[in-house]
């Protein structure tokens, strides 16, 4: 038996167990449903508003773009948040104290978060299919595009979340900056409104970050082809989407192990105890 293989398998089942725990813990489930419900409410509100220059529902476009936002929220914020929390509460140290435990731990996180994203995407699409018109979910091509954009998006986001989670020392210091960063990004990434209506310099800024490309990819999968007209260059730009998301994925996958190894090396009983005391004093 190869120990790494054993740890990898243990990690996969760890992720599945954690994912099931998320769905069976009322607090976790409710927070997922509230966020999803909030977005759905905003979409329903704008259901009859038209995307400027078209006869297409703004709510439907938003529904699809918000799927991209979800990938970023869960992939970066949830991942980062879990890492900070579990470093603080000693989960990471426990993983370090067992053979190949870090491998299992990280794989578990990847499976858990991917599961949560798949869950959110599924319920959003399910409700969307009943309440919204114009979703192009009938063709296999749509689903194929959705899958590769989703997988590439996860590959780009999860390592990034791990890196961000490593930068912050405590959960309290991490939450605020992360959410602000995300809100700013969403505003310039064409999630709630077509990016072509922004000033050109903001359009360029938005295109640097993966959120825009994830959104574009989602729209290309789930909206009618004619809607490409309101995008930059009047095109879905699949090649560029693939390129930019891959670049972020490669950067993250190179950087994350380095940063993670660094924080793992620093974990010890006394560092966890010190953080515990700090947290207790608050």
């Amino acid at each position, binding site marked *: 038996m190869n120990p790494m293989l054993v740890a990898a398998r243990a990690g996969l089942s760890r992720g599945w167990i954690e994912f099931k725990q998320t769905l069976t813990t009322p607090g976790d489930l409710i927070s997922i449903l509230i966020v999803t419900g909030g977005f759905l409410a905003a979409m329903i509100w704008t259901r009859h508003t038209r995307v400027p220059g078209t006869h297409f529902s703004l709510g439907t476009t938003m529904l699809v773009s918000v799927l991209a936002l979800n990938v970023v929220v869960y992939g970066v914020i949830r991942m980062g948040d879990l890492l900070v929390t579990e470093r603080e509460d000693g989960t990471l140290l426990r993983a370090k104290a067992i053979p190949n435990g870090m491998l299992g731990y990280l794989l578990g996180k990847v499976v858990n978060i991917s599961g949560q994203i798949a869950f959110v995407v599924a319920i959003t699409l399910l409700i969307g299919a009943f309440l919204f018109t114009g979703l192009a979910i009938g063709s296999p091509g749509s689903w194929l595009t959705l899958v590769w954009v989703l997988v590439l998006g996860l590959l780009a986001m999860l390592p990034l979340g791990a890196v961000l989670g490593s930068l912050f020392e405590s959960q309290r210091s991490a939450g605020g900056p992360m959410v602000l960063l995300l809100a700013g990004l969403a505003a310039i990434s064409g999630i709630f409104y077509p990016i072509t209506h922004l000033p050109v310099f903001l359009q360029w800024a938005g295109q640097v970050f993966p959120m825009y490309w994830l959104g574009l990819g989602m729209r290309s999968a789930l909206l009618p082809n004619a809607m490409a007209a309101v995008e930059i260059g009047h095109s879905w730009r699949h090649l560029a989407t693939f390129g930019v998301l891959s670049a972020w994925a490669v950067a993250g996958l190179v950087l994350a192990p380095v940063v993670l190894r660094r924080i793992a090396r620093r974990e010890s*009983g006394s560092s966890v105890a010190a953080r515990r005391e700090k947290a207790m004093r608050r």
Partner: protein
Amino acid sequence: MDDVLDVRDLRMRYGKTDVLNGVSFAARPGEVLALLGPNGAGKTTTIEILEGFRMRSAGEVSVLGTDPAHAGEAWRARTGVVLQSWRDHAKWQVRELLAHLGRYYAPYSTPGVTRPWDVDDLLETVGLTAHAGKRVRNLSGGQRRRLDVAIGIVGRPELLFLDEPTAGFDPEARRDFHDVVHRLADREEATILLTTHDLDEAERLADRILILAGGTIIADGSADELARAMSGQSEVRWSRDGQRFVHAADDATAFVRELFRQYGESVEDLEVRRASLEDTYMALVRQAEHGAPRRLTAVAA
């Protein structure tokens, strides 16, 4: 057989402060060692270096024949660390967590040692069978601590580290914990290194006691040996004609014989007390803090 732990001239420096300056000791297979010392003496630093969680500044360290600073996962599989838990894995069920953490050890079984520990047997050993289906967050403090021990030993370690294992225990939880440690040392023949502030606990659990003060080991021996080597004196108390007396005697037996010869029937309330581990400990630490540290080594018979 080779020593399980072999530490020579271990030094640790944080910035300009020397926390450890020349710690040396060894442990034979199956020994239970207690590391005692005042706060800030470097107990935790020492144990973390041996666990491979902290880099040392200088000195030679061999744990299970390997330098922990460069040890791999196969070495990790042979050691167990009982961590002071807080709220990790709160949503997991007790049995589920032990079964999961045990999986990582399976490839490291040897003909002599089957890893991991069978979960039902392990639950029985630490007394958590009745709580196997509970979520970790619903355990009481004492149960949670037993789970920590179970996690530390799920891989059937040849060497177990316990850093202040009973801090915050009520007397019953403490006694249960001591039972588990005894069982481990006897049945599993594990070598155990524990740090504690509780002298009574050290005396009860350890084959050998190491006292760390001023960055170095100032005493090394069994509780009895330390008491004898430190001061052969015993305290004799008695009363005569309603007056109370206290005398520190080198040879208590001879002193009491003489006492009776002189005063016979009028000696009452006689009490002879051998120096306790606490007396020895206090004397040694005070000496180390004030005078030049000298190492007191009791030679085992």
